[in-house]
């Protein structure tokens, strides 16, 4: 008989780590005793991309790692050895993770790591290493990312990749946003699902500072499940559509729309500037609000349609910058013309020395002759031909209300602003559909709940309109407050000019932003 030395009990040192001294009744590693399971969670955080990585080895591979941990081979794993192993393993894992941002390979750097040995079966421990890596993401522009976990490629096990929207912004991803295994702590074993086998993800992010006006977009192919990135968008996918649920959802949608109106965008600045500078009435404000809303709703519907039927040619987020550009140009044009008119008027005022109150003058000057040659207006219903636009310095300014060729000073016939100009403003303000609404639209179609989705968008727009109108009315009354102030200060004559300037500047900003997004400008 061959006499053998007792094999070195490599299992003995683990006694120090095992929580139960007796043969464990802990359930076996649920996926099998020789799996190596991997989990990655990617999320944009500020200006970085964070990867939370978990490695879970079942009893047998954990056992096979022991010689690598117990360096000095004395049968005991002390803190120093653990530390060293954790460091080197984390580094090895890091090198197995491949991240490419905009096609360029990007290094991940280790931020933190944590090694533990949870109890497994038969007194054998499992091995669990959790590490956090980060990579810096170029700010501002949209970044496309490709991630692949190449660690332990030939080993059986659960392989999960989750991409989540974090405090930074996530655009779209082909990996799920929710994890199934709770960082490899529990493995679902339902009959109709196989153990996960995902090692890659492709997604796009736009990292930005929290205050930026970045938008949350989701590109949804027909039939795909909508990712719930905000509460409004999640309304469309409520499980059961009973009447109370529908009514409640509509109310909620209106509420979100109202809230949304308070966030930056939709040309509120521009609207405000215009109303203040043009002495609009509540009715004007109401109309403006409606115009914005109608355009917005229409825009969502149309964009939704466009996305669906032209989705192989056009992606919404490709459209967005162009829409923004268009809207910006409209506003710039309007602002420029207003500025020109009011400036000219102002200069002429000085010359004419009318006795009308300053604000009336201001109103007169800012007569909203929205004959800007912007594309929205075709033809002039009050009979002006283009050639007659330019008023010679000698002619006095007058207002051309829609009703006719009134030459009364502003305020006298109660219509210092033209509906046309309001419409133009309203349209330009609503031209850029709110992404949430678009998400709702597309999601509704995907889920087959088209009518419900349309109603939600409508409700949203009503809420939006409500707030805009209220704001507008508020501004109008704020503007009319000035009326009561007997002011002859020349500074107030500058208000309409200022407002036109603001409009112009705002338009320029929007244009510039959109230009950057269309990629026509070189990235900064």
């Amino acid at each position: 008989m061959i006499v053998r030395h007792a094999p070195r009990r490599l299992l003995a040192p683990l006694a120090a780590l095992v929580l139960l001294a007796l043969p464990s009744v802990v359930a076996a590693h649920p996926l099998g005793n020789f799996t190596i399971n991997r989990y990655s969670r990617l999320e944009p955080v500020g200006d970085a991309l964070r990867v939370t990585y978990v490695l879970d080895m079942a009893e047998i591979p954990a056992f096979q790692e022991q010689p690598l941990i117990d360096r000095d081979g004395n049968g005991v794993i002390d803190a120093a050895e653990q530390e060293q192993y954790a460091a080197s393993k984390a580094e090895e894992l890091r090198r197995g993770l491949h991240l490419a941002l905009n096609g360029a390979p990007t290094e991940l750097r280790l931020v933190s790591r944590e090694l533990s040995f949870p109890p497994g079966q038969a007194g054998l421990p499992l091995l669990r290493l959790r590490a956090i890596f980060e990579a810096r993401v170029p700010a501002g522009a949209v970044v496309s990312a490709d991630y692949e976990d190449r660690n332990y490629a030939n080993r059986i096990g659960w392989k999960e990749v989750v991409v989540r929207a974090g405090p930074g912004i996530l655009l779209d991803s082909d990996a799920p946003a929710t994890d199934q295994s709770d960082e490899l702590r529990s493995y679902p074993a339902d009959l109709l699902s196989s153990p996960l086998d995902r090692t890659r993800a492709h997604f796009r992010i736009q990292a930005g500072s929290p205050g930026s006006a970045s938008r949350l977009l989701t590109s949804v192919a027909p039939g795909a499940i909508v990712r719930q990135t905000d509460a409004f968008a999640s309304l469309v996918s409520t499980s059961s559509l009973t009447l109370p649920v529908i009514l409640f959802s509509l109310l909620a949608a209106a509420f979100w729309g109202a809230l949304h109106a308070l966030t930056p965008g939709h040309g509120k600045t521009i609207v405000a500037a215009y109303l203040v500078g043009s002495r609009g009435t509540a009715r004007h404000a109401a109309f403006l609000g409606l115009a914005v809303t109608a355009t917005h709703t229409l825009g969502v519907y149309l964009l939704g349609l466009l996305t669906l039927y032209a989705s192989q040619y056009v992606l919404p987020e490709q459209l967005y910058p162009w829409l923004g550009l268009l809207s910006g140009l409209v506003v710039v044009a309007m602002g420029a013309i207003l500025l020109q008119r009011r400036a000219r008027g102002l200069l002429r005022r000085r010359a004419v020395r009318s006795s009308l109150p300053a604000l009336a003058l201001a109103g007169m000057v800012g007569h909203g002759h929205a004959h800007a040659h912007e594309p929205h207006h075709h033809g002039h219903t009050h009979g002006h031909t283009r050639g007659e636009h330019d008023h010679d310095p000698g002619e006095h300014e007058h207002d051309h209300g829609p009703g006719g060729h009134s030459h009364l000073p502003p305020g006298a016939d109660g219509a210092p602003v033209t509906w046309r100009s309001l419409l133009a403003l309203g349209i330009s303000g609503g031209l850029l559909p709110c992404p949430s609404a678009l998400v709702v639209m597309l999601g509704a179609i995907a889920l087959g709940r088209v009518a419900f989705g349309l109603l939600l968008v409508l409700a949203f727009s009503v809420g939006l309109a409500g707030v805009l109108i209220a704001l507008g009315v508020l501004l109008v009354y704020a503007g009319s407050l000035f009326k009561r102030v007997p002011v002859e200060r020349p500074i107030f004559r500058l208000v309409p000019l200022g407002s036109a300037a603001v409009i112009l500047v705002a338009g320029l900003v929007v244009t510039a932003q959109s230009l950057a997004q269309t990629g026509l400008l070189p990235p900064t």
Partner: protein
Amino acid sequence: MPLRRHQQVGLCVAAVLLTAFAVLVTQTLVLGVGRGAADIGQVPDLRGSTDKQIASLQAWLRQYEHDPSRQREVARATVDLGSAYLQKARESGDPAYYPRAEAAFQQALAADPNDFRALAGLGALALSRHQFQQALSFGEQARAIAPESVAVLGVVADAQTELGQYDAAAATIQQMVDLRPDLASYARVSYARELHGYLPEAIEAMRRAAEAGPPGQEGTAWTRVQLGNLYFNTGNLTAAQEAYQQALHEVPDYLHALAGLARVEGARGHYQAAIELYRKATAAIPIPEYIIALGDVYQATEAHEQAEQQYALVDTIERLYAANGVDLDLEIALFDLDHDRRLPQALEQARMQAQRRPSIKAQDVLAWALYKNGDCQAAQQAMSQALRLGTKDALLFFHAGLIADCLGQRDQARSYLEQTLQLNPAFSPLYASRARETLARLGGSSAATNRSLGGAS
């Protein structure tokens, strides 16, 4: 009214809005955009790879499992899914699919207790778990319902074989191959022939089995490996190597084929190549048989530390099996005995095994355990049971030879050891030289031992 204009504009906007609404609604209703999920045309795709089948079946079941008008199809799809899971477990070695397979079969049975395919599936699962009595029970239940289903007969035949009911197994296999001669039945014919000692006929049957297998499939590769093993066990290293390589051609990196090639290299004395191949074979899935073999090859190269690592790994696997109440692998039992580990416990295990499943293999392990524990008399009794079918296997003869030697039966011992080396001179890296030495000591003909070794046939 002076506001007519804006009213007009407002009306325009409203009109456009409504039109768009109408258009959108009509479009979606008519074209059924986004309705894909509701189409009745979606059915599981049973072509293609196991993965595709699984994905297709899962998707179909998720959609239709609660549809009252399709319950018959749901039952069939569920059983198909269970079978696909079993196949996936086979192909990938991933045991996570076993509980799912079980759940599928149980679900189908709950819907129809006479679903013979579900019963057969549970039988196949029991076989994988070494629960042979239970497998036989499931199999017989299914057979009562569908006596001419070849899958059912396969389960029954396998269970009968493992339980030592060789005559019944032969009858079942005959029925199976009469009903449907194909890879599955031919492979079982081959094994039955092998157990009864008809080696050339076993090789012929396995060759036909491999020929009958669809190319590129795991089952075909498996069969080629079995053919390789048959060649190896009869000392034909060249043919064995070719069979293993052909298996690799069917399924690249098929671990059983890699292990087979490793064994051939080991038999030729190319230990480094053998180590490489065994390591590759065990990299993803730690099959005890191959880990033991790797350890033995390390031993042969005097790399004791690495050998110990492998043996320690086997210990670990053994503990896990024990903790799960799974019947010990006979390979692991032999391992314990061969390496003088826990000899009394191994004997106890062997007794239990032999009682539970009196197959000739279990009898052989019992005989060896008795021998190792010093009871050569009882060992010989068990050995004669192990040899009762007339099986021609080098390891069996080796055990028999040493046992006879222990009892002082020189002629018997010599005869057995001669047969051992005639059959397969490289039958074991651990014991081949021991067999030669013992034979020499017994005055056996060394001419028989000159075959192959260095000059592989």
